[in-house]
Structure formats: C-alpha cells, structure tokens
C-alpha cells in the first residue's frame, strides 16, 4: 500500500518531466499580410467595390473598410509589371495602366480585372488614360507612347506620338467640359488640344524640367506641377504661363480637390500643399517623412488616404485644413 503512494509520486514526477520537456511552442506572430505600408502604390481610386489601390508588381488591392484591410483583386494574367495609374469612368468601369503597355479593364469596380493589352516587346509604360468626348479611349505614356481604343477599351491600337515626340508623356488632363485638353510631359513637354482631344499642338517651352501632372481650375485656368517645386499657372488656356512663388524643391506627383473648393498637391518628402485661392498660391500643410506621395483620396469619414512609394497612409483632413 505504502509503495503504491511512492510509485504514484514517481509516476507524477516522470509525467511532469515529460510535460516540461515536451516541445515548447513560442507565441506565434501575426499571419502574413499584404505589405500595404511597405510597397510602392502609385494610384488610388474609389469605386463600387470600395477603395482601390495599385502599383508594385502589378498588384491591385481592394479595401471595403476605408483602407483598414486590403485584399488582392483578381487579375486574369498577372504580368508583374508596375501599375502606374487607375482610372474609373464610373462606379464599375475602370482601367489600370502599367509598364510594358499593360492595360487591365474591370467592369465590377475593380474586384476582377482582365488584360486588354500587353506588349512585352516594347517596354514603354502607359502613364495615363482617359475617354474623349467622341467616346474614343486614349492612353499616353513613356517615350511618346500613344494608344487608343474605340470599343470601350476592349482592344487597343498604337498611334503615332503627337508631333513625333519621344519624351515621356506623364499626364492627360481635360477641362471640366472636356472641350480643351493638355498633355504634360518630360522636359517641359506640353501639348494642347482645343478640339476635344482630337488633335494636339505643342506649346512653346516655358520650363525645361519635367511636368508630372496638372489640373483644370475652371474657365481658362490650369495648373501644371513638376520637379523641384515648379508650379505653373495659366489663365488663358495655356497661351501664357506664370511660375508660382513656391520655394521647396520637391517633385510633385499628385493633386486632389476637396469639398471646400481648396486644392491639395502632394509629392516628395511626404509633403502636402494646399491652396484655397484656386491655385494662385500654395502652403505646405503636411510633411510625412521620406516617402514620395503618388496619389490622394479623400474619404467620407474625414480622412485623407495617401498612396506613396512606401505604402498607403492616412491623415485626418481636419489636420490639414486649419
């Protein structure tokens, strides 16, 4: 009887030993996530599917919760080329343009995409895409690339570059009424169209550096932005341009209108500039570190989502407005 207790205790100790030395599993870390805060996102948009972001390695991401969580969109042929721009015509029809002539098309707001153009022989990127009033779709890009589609973007044809240029064409801009158009490009390249984008004329060079984008400010007012803090404004549909007095030498890559009528610009140094006088002057309202902001998207909840070469971030708009 007594021995039973001793044996029992011995068994307990042995069991404890086996338990103590059985494999110890360390606390586990979080599941792998899309590195949304550490990848190159070039463009943001919102659609019926929610918030859409795209960029590095041809990935397109969709968020249903204002950027809290993201999922990969479905792409029928993943080419791993950098996506340069998202453009939604309406809540459902949209395009994603990329390097190597890659164009993707969605009809469900960005949940699923199908390839409509890819040219692995010629590596020029398509950098912007818009629909002309005629119904024709036009894409522009690197080395004077010009493509067009007459069937709602299902098939694309290569067009000769405007005026035979081989500079990069960075942005395709239209006036609110889509009557006048501008193409902003590398090394001071600016083309203008006064016939709904059907024909293009080069504007005489007024700046030697590159323009990355621009915006129509109503009437005959336009703004172009480019490298090293260069901002140019015209009040006569591009006949004459005035350089704005802005001294911070950062390249600017993105703009956005806010509901209160003010305009935001953003670019290197994570900087956001704001103008409340229809683009006549800009003040720096936010500085986000070393990233280059590539796109802005205000949300209804009062946040401003920024995409950059180091991922997506958000700031409260109220921080920028006071």
């Amino acid at each position, binding site marked *: 009887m007594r021995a039973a207790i001793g044996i029992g205790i011995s068994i307990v100790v042995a069991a404890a030993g086996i338990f103590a030395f059985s494999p110890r599993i360390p606390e*586990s870390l979080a599941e792998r996530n899309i590195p949304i805060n550490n990848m190159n996102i070039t463009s943001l948009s919102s659609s019926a599917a929610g918030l859409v972001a795209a960029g590095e390695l041809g990935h397109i991401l969709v968020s249903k919760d204002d950027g809290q969580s993201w999922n990969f969109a479905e792409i029928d042929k993943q080419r791993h080329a950098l996506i340069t721009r998202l453009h939604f015509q309406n809540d459902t029809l949209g395009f994603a343009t990329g390097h190597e002539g890659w164009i993707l098309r969605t009809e469900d707001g960005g949940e699923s995409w199908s390839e409509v153009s890819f040219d692995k022989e010629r590596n020029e990127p398509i950098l912007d895409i818009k629909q002309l009033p005629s119904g024709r779709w036009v894409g522009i890009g690197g080395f004077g690339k010009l493509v067009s589609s007459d069937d709602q973007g299902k098939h694309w044809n290569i067009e000769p570059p405007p005026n035979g240029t081989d500079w990069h064409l960075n942005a395709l801009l239209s006036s609110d009424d889509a009557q006048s158009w501008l193409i902003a490009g590398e090394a001071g390249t600016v083309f203008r169209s006064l016939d709904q984008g059907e024909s293009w004329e080069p504007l005489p060079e007024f700046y030697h550096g590159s323009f990355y984008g621009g915006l129509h400010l109503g009437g005959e007012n336009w703004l172009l932005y480019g490298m090293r803090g260069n901002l140019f404004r015209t009040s006569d549909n591009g006949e004459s341009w005035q350089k704005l007095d802005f001294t911070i030498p950062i390249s600017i890559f993105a703009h956005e209108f806010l509901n209160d009528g003010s305009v935001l610009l953003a670019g290197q140094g994570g900087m956001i500039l704001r103008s409340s006088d229809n683009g006549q002057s800009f003040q720096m309202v936010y500085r986000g570190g070393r990233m280059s902001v590539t796109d802005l998207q205000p949300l209804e909840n009062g946040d401003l989502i920024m995409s950059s070469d180091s991922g997506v971030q958000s700031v409260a708009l109220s921080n920028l407005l006071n």
Partner: protein
Amino acid sequence: MANQSNNSPGSFVDRFVDGIARLLISKRRFFGVLFILMTIGFSYSAMQTRFDAGFNKLIPMNHDYMKAFLDHGPKFSGANRIMVNLQWKGEGDIYNPEFMAQLKKATDEVFFIPGVNRTTVRSLYTPEVRYVEVTEFGFMGSEVIPSRFTADEAGLSAVRSNVNKSGQVGNLVSTDLKSAMVQAELLEFDQATGDKTNYRAVAAHLESIRTALANDNIEVSIIGFAKVMGDVMDGLVNVLIFFIVAFGITMALLWAYSRSLKLTLLAIAVALLPVIWLMGTLPLIGYGIDPMSVLVPFLIFSIGVSHAVQMTNTWKQDVLMGMTPIDAAESAFRKLAIPGTVALLANALGFMVIMVIDIPMVHELGVTACLGVAMMIVTNKMFMPIILSHLKLENMAFSGPDRPDVKHPIWWKLSALATPKAAMISLACMLVLLVGGTWQSRSLLTGDIGSGVPELRAESRYNKDNDEIARNYQIGMDVLSVYLETSGREEACLDWEVMNAVDRFDMHMRGVDGVQSVRTVAGLSKLYVSGNNEGNPRWRTLQRDNYALVAGARAAHPQQGLSDNGCKIINMMVYLDDHQDATLKHVSGEIQKYLAEQSVSDATFRMAGGNAGVAVATNQAVETAEAQMLTAIFSAITLLCWITFRSWRGVLCVVVPLILVTILCNALMSLLGIGLKVATLPVIALGVGVGVDYGIYIYESLQHSLKQGHSLRESFYEAMYRRGTAAVFTAVTMSIGVGTWAFSALKFQADMGILLAFMFLVNVLGAIFLLPALACWLDVKPERKVNKTIKVETSKDTGGVFEASEMPVK
C-alpha cells in the same frame, strides 16, 4: 563516489585490481618518475595552448542552412564591418565646428586601423559619399563635404543640405541628426604583413580611438564583429582570474575539511594534474581553448578534488587504524579503483551525451571533457596512491571530531525523513516544487533572449553601443540571408525571370510579421531605375527588356553585397525585428512556405545565412538535441543505477529527484531569462551526469546498511554519517568552482556557471531530502536476518552490491 565492487573473493576483477595495486606500489619509484616526467612534458606543451574565440565552431555544420551559408556566406561583404559612431551631447545637431573636426579625426583614425580595407572607409568626409539631385538639366552631384570645406555658417549649412540630399540620414548620419559614424570593412588578411587580421589588435586600436576622441560633448560607440571578437577574447583571458579564485576557495574548504595541510596540498596538486595533462594534450591534437571548453579545466579540477578527497579519506582512515602509509595506499587503491572509476565513467557519460548536439564547439567540449576524465582516472587512481605511500600524516589531522559512540545530531535529526510522517512532508514540498517548476519551465525560450550580441552581457559596453546605434540609425542588426543560385545564364541580374523572382520574394517578405525590411538586388535595382527617371515612383519597376534592366545594373555590383560577380549567387537579405526564437521560427517558416511554391528555371533558392540564419539553424539543432540528450542521459543513468543496485526502488530513489532538479533547472532558466541554447543545453546533461553521483553514493551506503538488518532510518543515518559530509563538501566545492563564472564578462559563460552551480548544489539537496522520503514511501525495508558469513564479507567498507542477488541463509 558510486561505490560499486564485486566482492566475491576470487573474481577476475578483484584479482586484476589486486594485481595492479601490488604492481603500482612495488614499482612506485618507476611509476612516480614516469608520471612526473609526463607532467613536465605536458606542462611544456601546455604553454602552446592558444585561445580561440571559436565563432566558426558555433555553427551546426550539418544543418542544410549552414551548408548554404558556408558555401556562400563568405562571398558577401558586410559581415566584417566596423562602425565608429560619434554622438554629439551638446546643444543642437552635429553641424558644428567641434563635431565636424572630431568626425574628420575619426575618419582618419579608422583609415589607419591595421587590416582595414581602406577603399571601404565611409563617412561624411570620404569622397565616395556623394549626393545626387535631379535638376532640369539632368543629374547634379558632388561630395557631401567638399574638399575646400570650412566649418563656418555657410559651409555647415551647405553640408547639412548635401547630407539630406545624399540619403545618408539613417545610414552615416543618425535620424535625429545628433550622431554621425565612420564605417569600414576589415580584410581577412593584413595587406601590409600578409598575416591573418588580428581582431584583438583591431579591437584594442578601436578602444584607443574611443579614448582619443571622446570628450564632454562627444560620446563614442563602436560596434562590429572585430570588436565582439576582441571583447570575447578579453573575457576569455579573464577567466584565468576565476580559476585562481576557485582554486583559492577550494583550498580553504579542503583545509577546513581535512585539517591537514599536507592532505590539502596533495588533493589540490593531484586535482591539478589532469588539468595540466589535458592542457598539454590540447595543442597536440590541434584543439584550442574556446569560451565553452574553458569550462572543462574547472570541471576536471572540481571533480578531481572530490575524488582526491575520497582517496585521502580512505587512506587516512586506514592509517588511523594503524596501517603503514604504504599499506594504506595500496588498500585505498584497492577499495576505490572500481567505484571511483565507475563514478568517473558516469561523469564521462554526461560529457559524451552532449555530443548529440550537432555543433563543433560542443563536440570539442565533449571530447575535451572525456579526455580530462580519462586522465583523471590515471592521475587520481594511480599517481595519488604513490604519493600517499610516501606521506606521513601530521598530528592535527588525528584529532577529528569523529566520535562513533554518540550520534551526530544534525544527521540523526535529518534521518527522520526516512519515517513516514516527515517523508510525507518532504514529498509534499517536492510536489509543490514540481508543480511550480513544471509550470514555470513551460515558458522557457529557445535561443538568445534580449537584444544585442548574445555572447556579451546586455549591460556590456558593446551592447550599450549596439543599442545606441540600432536606435538612432536605420541599420538592421539581425539579418537572415536567402541565396538564389543561378546557372547557365550570362548575367542573371539582367535576366527578367530571375530578377522578377527576387522582386516577388522581396515584396512577399515585406508582408511577414517580424520582418523589419528586405534588401535585394531587385529592390535596389528598381530604386536605381526610378532614380534614372527623375526619382519618379511610377518608374520604380523592372521591365522584361534587357536594355531596361541595365538601367538598374549598378545594384548588381558585388560591392553592394547583394550578388556576386555575374550574379551567379544572389543574396537576398531579410532584416528581422529581433533574434528571438519566435521571430526566427515564424520568419524562416514563412520563407520555407513561400519558397516551396516557387520555381525558377536553372535556379535554386537556398536557406539561409546571416546571423539570424545561423541562429535559426542553431536553435533547431538545440531543440532536436534536447529530447535526444535527455532520453539518452536518463536511460543511461537508469541503467547504471540498475546495475549498481539491482533494485527498481533504488533506481526510482535516485532518478526521481534528478528529474525534479532537471525540471527546476529549466524553470530557473526561464525565471532568469536564460534561453535554451548551445551554451546551456550541455549544462543539463553535465548536471545530471555529475549530480547522479550523490544519489548513487548515498543509496549505495543505505542499501549496504539495510542488508545488515538495520532499519531504514538507521540505515539512512548511517549513509549520511559516512558519506553525507563528503557529498555536501563535494557539491559545495564543485558549485564554487563553476559558480565563479557567474561573474564572467561573457554572457554564456555566466549562464553556464549559474546553472551548473545550481545543478550541483540542488542535486545534493535532492539526494539528502527526497531520497529517504521516497525510500520510505516506496517501502524500502531492511533485509531479513542475514547470514553471518555474508555479513562479515559485507562489513568491509566497500559496498556489497552484488550480494543482493545471493540467497540469504535461513
């Protein structure tokens, strides 16, 4: 201590031992001179013993990861970089004349470090550090600090602006602009002399730079592999001091125990002999003393002392009984040859079992220790009787406190543990400890815990410097390298398929928890491509076209450390948040999972290098070895106990306390924040191997007394009276011998010291407090009335183990 002998008079073993004993004593002159000559020879050879930081011996060579690491690791630079950081303590940032002057001085000093690759020295003052800006007219760039720099307001503000454009903030200049550093790579060989770069000299030189440059306004921090090596070597040499301290304390304890100066000196001298022999042997077999094997002399010395004590005690008892020193020496040899050797073999078992850990340094530790034990058998069992036969005991030693007629009060009280009530209390305490210990032991972590270099203490100067730099710069300290081997390609870095695979790996890893950043040739190449396009993020990509890939080809320069010449091997570097086991396991697991799904034509991914890659492999080796090692040591111990006692009760009485102590050791490790790693895993086996001696020693005596018909309590008292003091003495001596290590500058030596001291000390407590309680509740009983003739035989002090199988006569 394990007292085991075959007592049947005519047995072969007995005759063998008798023969040797007679031979030894009759030819004692010859053997004495031989041993002395050997000692002189080994002493001479021991002078050649070299210290060896042994970093390359810490790698589990047979692990797949380490095969890849050994194949490719040395090709990529960066592993041997030193960084000298100056931190400005005054007002404002670094852009002031005083700081800039010191930074220039530091740059010059680093330039002249012996063994430094001068083309790799980088600081704001070196011409290779440039800034580039994109302008309307193309790229503009220049040196960050122009050659005509004067530290006036205009000059300083120009430098400030250049630094911002250079992208060096976070690299050569801290993010808070309060520090700047000088970086340089060391060469494997000194260019001037052609000798292997002497890291200790480099470390000393770095220390002199610190002294020269530090002042009230400027603090200097220095990190780099060479500095770690230097500090480890310094710590290793300081271990000698601990040996001297351990030596002194042991001597004092010995004198207190034996009260004879002669016996004290004899025991110490004899215990030192195997240490000298061992140190003399190491250079002959090409081994050096590394931070781990330096443990062996301590252990051998401690074990040697305890065995010498046994021998002198036996000899003393015989001399007190009236034998001549010569006869007593022969008799002592005869009595202790077998049990002593068995005990030493049990120790050797502990040393051998650690060799399941697949790490060269541990193998060397095992070999060195086994060698030491083998030598101890010769010196202790053969040389010692020869010296004893020449010895005359001084008078003081005769007046021992031993008075056999009165019961020793402490041991008698303690023997109450062999009665059911007290035993139950003891067992209840044990269960409490067991539950607490088991629970605590579950939070034991594998690998190195904490930040900084694991070899050194967290509060060491080096690790403080390391923290300082890690905090203020964007320089990753824990890197796991994955290698992509390509074949059949002219320039793999101009091959889109390869580069895209690297690119996708880069992005995938950025999403893994525990990854701080990723550096690959693809990522850098994309940055260069975008740089070529005015820094526009919309161009940060790799196109299929070869011509387009050339734009980023600078990323494939071998100096970037991301690929070798021609991109035969691409080194993808994953920087981790830390080197905790959880992070290592998670990240390496994620990499494996990802790579399993990848296939690139004519290219293979291989894991893993970098300090984190080594840590992953090491932790895996340690975890695999843990189970094997424990199973091996406990099976061996169980078998040994069974052979000794021929009783399952005896086995349980010895093994159960050992299990408890082993669990408690794990609990202690987790409490003290000591990880289960290469340095600490062997400790468990060593602790069990040495700790089992006490139990065997005491139970053997207890069994002997039980056979004479004494009650359990009487028998336990008898065991404690005869052997308790010696056991406690041994435990204390050995604990102190290794316990001095707790003060070592080297973290893992300190960890080993603390844990070994714990194992030695607590195992004796287990044998004293738990063994009788278990014996009581396992119903260990005296034998029935024993036959007279057997009693006469067994009454010789040597334990009568094998009589247990003999039938008692009714």
